């Protein structure tokens, strides 16, 4: 927090993406509390993913938010204030690994199919379904990698895209 504050003094109002990991009680209503905190205070969530941890009484939420340092500071403090929140960790400024999963259905024809399969292969994507006019690719990776694939697939026509939102883990 102190580092964040120093940045505020030096860097001004630069808006940055932050990946925040939140350990919460695995109880009903907790997601609504977190979502309500963000909407009620006007913070934007870029993505959110939730699942149980190895301890079935605890869930982990990985939240990607955007905001200047003072907003991120408020977000982490407000999260910490919730009784059902056990731990909040902002991964900014520390080494961490992140992944997203997408399922993307791309329009194909007999002519374009080989090229699309080749692109998927380069990205180590998996073809998980195919029919006469489309192909469904599964891909995991960082947001950058996923954006790069989607960029290449766009000219062929993306019929449907399902994206999980980011999950992340600290390296230490």
């Amino acid at each position, binding site marked *: 927090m102190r580092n964040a504050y120093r940045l505020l003094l030096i860097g001004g109002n630069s808006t940055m993406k932050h990946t925040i990991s939140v350990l919460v*009680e695995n109880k009903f209503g907790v997601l609504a509390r977190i979502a*309500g*905190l963000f909407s*009620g205070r006007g913070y934007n969530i870029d993505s959110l993913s939730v699942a149980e941890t190895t301890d079935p009484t605890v869930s982990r939420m990985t939240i990607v938010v955007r905001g200047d340092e003072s907003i991120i500071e408020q977000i982490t403090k*407000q999260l*910490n204030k919730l*009784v*059902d929140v056990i731990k909040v960790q902002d991964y900014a400024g520390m080494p961490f690994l992140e992944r997203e999963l997408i399922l993307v259905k791309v329009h194909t024809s007999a002519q374009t199919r080989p090229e699309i399969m080749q692109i998927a292969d380069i990205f180590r994507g998996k073809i998980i379904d195919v029919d006469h006019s489309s192909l469904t690719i599964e891909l995991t990776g960082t947001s950058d990698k996923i954006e790069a694939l989607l960029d290449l697939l766009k000219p062929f026509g993306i019929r449907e895209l399902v994206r999980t939102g980011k999950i992340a883990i600290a390296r230490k």
Partner: protein
Amino acid sequence: MKGCEIVIDALLKEKVEVIFGYPGGAIMDVFDALYESPIQFFLTRHEQAAAHAADGYARATGKVGVCIATSGPGATNLVTGIATAYMDSVPIVALTGQVPTPMIGNDAFQEADIVGITRPITKHNYLVNNVDDLPRILKEAFLIASTGRPGPVLIDLPKDVQKAESGVAYPTKVELRGYKPTYEGHPQQIKKAAQEIAKSKKPVIYAGGGVIGSEAAGELKEFATKTGIPVTTTLLGLGAFPETHELSLGMLGMHGTVYANYAIAESDLLIGIGARFDDRITGKLSAFAPNARIIHIDIDPSSLHKNVKVDVPIVGDVRCVLKELNKIVKRCDTGAWLKTIAVWKKKHPLVYERKDGKLRPQFVIEALREITGGDAIVVTDVGQHQMWAAQYCKVVKPRSFLSSGGLGTMGYGFPAALGAQAGFPKKLVVVISGDGSFQMNIQELTTAVNCNLPVKVLILNNRYLGMVRQWQELFYKGRYAATCLARNISCPKICDGKAKKCPPYVPDFVRVAEAYGAVGFRVMKEKDVRPTLKAAIKTPKPVVMDFVVEQEENVFPMVPAGATVQEMIKGVELV
């Protein structure tokens, strides 16, 4: 035990003596269990009043206030009271009935998702699904409400849970892994604060409701007198430091004293204690205390750095931190600074027009202050009268001035006063209200009379929603839209308030009071103010005093919203 009995058992174990509420279908079992219990129950005439009464009880006594209502409309009627308590960090526990668990979500009769509705206005809330969880939840609720930064907690009790049997005992202790408020301040930060204080030449203490909440008025007084630093308080901080003390600057902010606001503007060190740098305090943020280093002591980490940048943040309980700080601080070199302030105090005291013989609201409050000697518990509503009360009550003791600050809830005063009176049956409890605010919970005259809660209500009746009218006069070209309370259907559409003939004012508060079985007085002249107040205080019943005061009196000084101290409107000048 049945769920409903577990509830009453828990209340007794938590030493709850009084409850305010209103029954209904979905909470009947709890009321049934309450029927023969030693807890004193106060039946209000509206659930909102029950929540405010619990709040007033909590603010006056320092204990947790408890209110209870049924599902659906009963629960939603509590909402304003809960939000009021949340904004001002008041510990209350609200119990609501709920439709039976199998019916939840079916749009059943009198069903409302009150846990969803109150999520952003409670510190925490619970829907009890299993009666075996109930003892733990009740224990947690009282712990959460009363510790850390206090606040309201709501427990929603489905009817089948109230009826279900459980053998689980009431826990003596609960452990919440996500809730660990910090009480002790960081020693290094406290040391740093002491160094800043030693260096400063023009320090000011800015104390808020947190000082009262943590019972730190004694520590604050020691801190101020030991260092020789002047103290200004927020509205909620009134009583945290005796306003009769020479180091007191009174209230700061939008309607604060000129000298308090000048002192902040000129200060080189601002010590915020249990206060949150609210917009009614700071005005234009970029021009607030421009030359000051800032120390901020608060138990809520999210209060720090929220509105202003802080040089020495200290997270901790105000009392714990001040105790440590008092061990190491020394007298500051504030002689010249206090002289400067004394000049401002002399030049810009709180004043109002006294020469024309008209009955002014400030005069009524000064008379009340003189007669009670600061011994009464004063509870205010919201509006002009609230600000005059804050300016002229000269509060000397903590928990003797109760007011809705954060939410600014009109209608708070009267029911909150009933709560305070329930907590202190022998003390004099006075409501300072306006003719607008009082009508928002006027039905509680029944509660006051039937429960023998002899509060004294002063209505400073200016026939206007005065604060809004003041803003209309100052910022909306005198267009008095919907603020005249005397207005009726016969009035012209456009009226600047200068009409020769106005309709008779409705209601006649004296006759209203009498209709409820209370006592009513009307006062039109200055000379009748003191005798009436004295007579009211002697009357062992609830009394309503209708002071028909100057209509267009304004609250000054005033720093307009979002403005700077330089833009302050000072009002009447001493001649």
